[in-house]
């Protein structure tokens, strides 16, 4: 059990975004979280990654309680994340963006940067760059390393964000709608990428609206609606679940 969400609730002012959500994510699996818009999926991700405080309940990762832990320390523990709307660093190149993934695993501070007495690059800097390049090539964007991140087309920006998260060497990857805005060919590429990451032993928690993608690649699916978990199981169990169908399509009316 790499991630345990124990009766987690989140309240924003008067609005209850999540209510008593309980979920167990098994290590090495691909676990999807689906549900209509506004169900609370991204809120859940925000709570896991630390962007917002948990109102009630606990989240445990690799045996550690995340509740009061600052976001950058959660990254250090091994949680990587991509965003619904791509959040790359615009004033940096693609490679520099990806290199940032290794920030919490490296040490060079201001002092070492300024006071180095040889003209050669720091050893750590060299390994960071090679490591980042490796992950950039893994997502297929090696040649674009020195371009400004903001110049890339949307789908490629998403891949850069993924490479950046991978450089963190996370055990758990939170992917928030990675296929949004992708055409079928790009989506297939994404599918292959996720499968490869999973083969490496990474646990993937996935928010997606593309049902083909979700049903094809996930081992477990949790369904949220109005801030509560309404169903959970493997793809075929979830597909046949009447509560899920009702959430997406509405109640079956008499006479139809």
């Amino acid at each position, binding site marked *: 059990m790499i991630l345990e969400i124990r009766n987690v609730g989140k309240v924003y002012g008067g609005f209850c975004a999540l209510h008593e959500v309980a979920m167990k994510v098994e290590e090495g699996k691909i676990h999807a979280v689906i549900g209509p818009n506004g169900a609370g999926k991204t809120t859940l991700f925000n709570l896991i*990654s*630390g*962007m917002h405080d948990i109102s009630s309940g606990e989240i445990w990762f690799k045996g550690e309680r995340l509740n009061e832990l*600052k*976001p*950058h320390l959660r*990254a*250090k523990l091994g949680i990587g*994340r991509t*965003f619904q709307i791509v*959040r*790359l*660093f*615009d*004033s*940096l190149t693609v490679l*520099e963006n990806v*290199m*940032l*993934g290794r*920030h*919490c*695993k*490296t040490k*060079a*501070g*201001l002092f070492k*940067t*300024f006071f*180095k007495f040889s003209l050669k690059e*720091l050893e*750590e*800097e060299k390994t*960071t760059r090679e490591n980042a390049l490796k992950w950039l090539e893994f997502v297929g964007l090696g040649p674009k390393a020195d371009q*400004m991140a903001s110049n890339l087309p949307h789908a490629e920006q998403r891949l850069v964000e993924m490479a*950046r*998260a991978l450089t*963190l060497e996370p055990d758990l990857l939170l992917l928030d709608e990675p296929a949004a805005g992708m055409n079928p060919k790009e989506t297939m590429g994404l599918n292959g990428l996720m499968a490869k990451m999973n083969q490496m032993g990474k646990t993937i928690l996935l928010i997606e609206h593309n049902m083909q993608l979700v049903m094809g690649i996930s081992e477990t699916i949790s369904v949220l609606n109005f801030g509560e978990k309404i169903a959970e199981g493997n793809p075929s169990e979830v597909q046949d679940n009447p509560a899920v169908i009702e959430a997406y399509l509405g109640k079956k009316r008499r006479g139809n």
Partner: protein
Amino acid sequence: MDYLLSVATVAGIYIIMALSFYMPFLTGQISLGQAGFMAVGAYASAVATVKWGVPYIPSVLFGGIVAGIVGFVLGLPALRIKGIYLLLLTLGFGEIVRVIFINLKYVGAAGGFPGIPYQKYTLFYAYGMVFILIIFFSRLRKSRMGRAFQAVGNDETAAEILGVNITSAKLMAFSVGAFIAGIGGGIFAHFQEYVEPLMFGVMHAVEFIVFAIFGGVQIFWGPIFGAFVLTFMPEFFRIIQTWRMELYGVLLIVMMILRPQGVIGLDTIQGLKRLFQKAH
């Protein structure tokens, strides 16, 4: 000739001030307080030289360190504050410093602190510091912390999720910026031979920001260019001197419309690199 050297010296000091603004700016912290830190550095180093007999270099360094410590203290509450509210905080700080020095008898109060021994080689010390800063910023750009600073400036939340300790990054940048401003103040004090609170008002803080924004904020050469050019221009055109602040205003408006990144941008550097390569 003497006159030009004097202008060049002031330009050098102002380059240091523009770079002191640039440092916290990298992490997204826009500070109107750099003149305040300059004042702290100026007064601290003046006290060290005049009252305690400390020699020049340690004295200036002392000014920088005191300013850096004040920067750290101010940087702590500044962590939670963004945008215009940070502008107000740093503006308030600058004013508080000014008022404190107006009332501080030990350093001459409103009359100012006279009798600072003149440093004949201020020009060299100023540009020596500029040289050190050039090395610092160029090394920073290609380093782990440099990337972290830029990331924090671009998107704080995403940087934090990625594992960057944004608290420590912002605090570091703010303190180092204050330190640099303090050094500028120390060098300034030993050039002017006296310091008074009036020299470190809000309009000076604004000027440093104008230098950096006009010169270009994509790369550290921008503030250097901006401070140098805008310090020399008024010396050659009398009309610029009279209408200096008004012209700054017009300049800023025009720049923001035509070329928001400032005169020197990443494209400028790349263009220059290509030109250099063609020549070979």
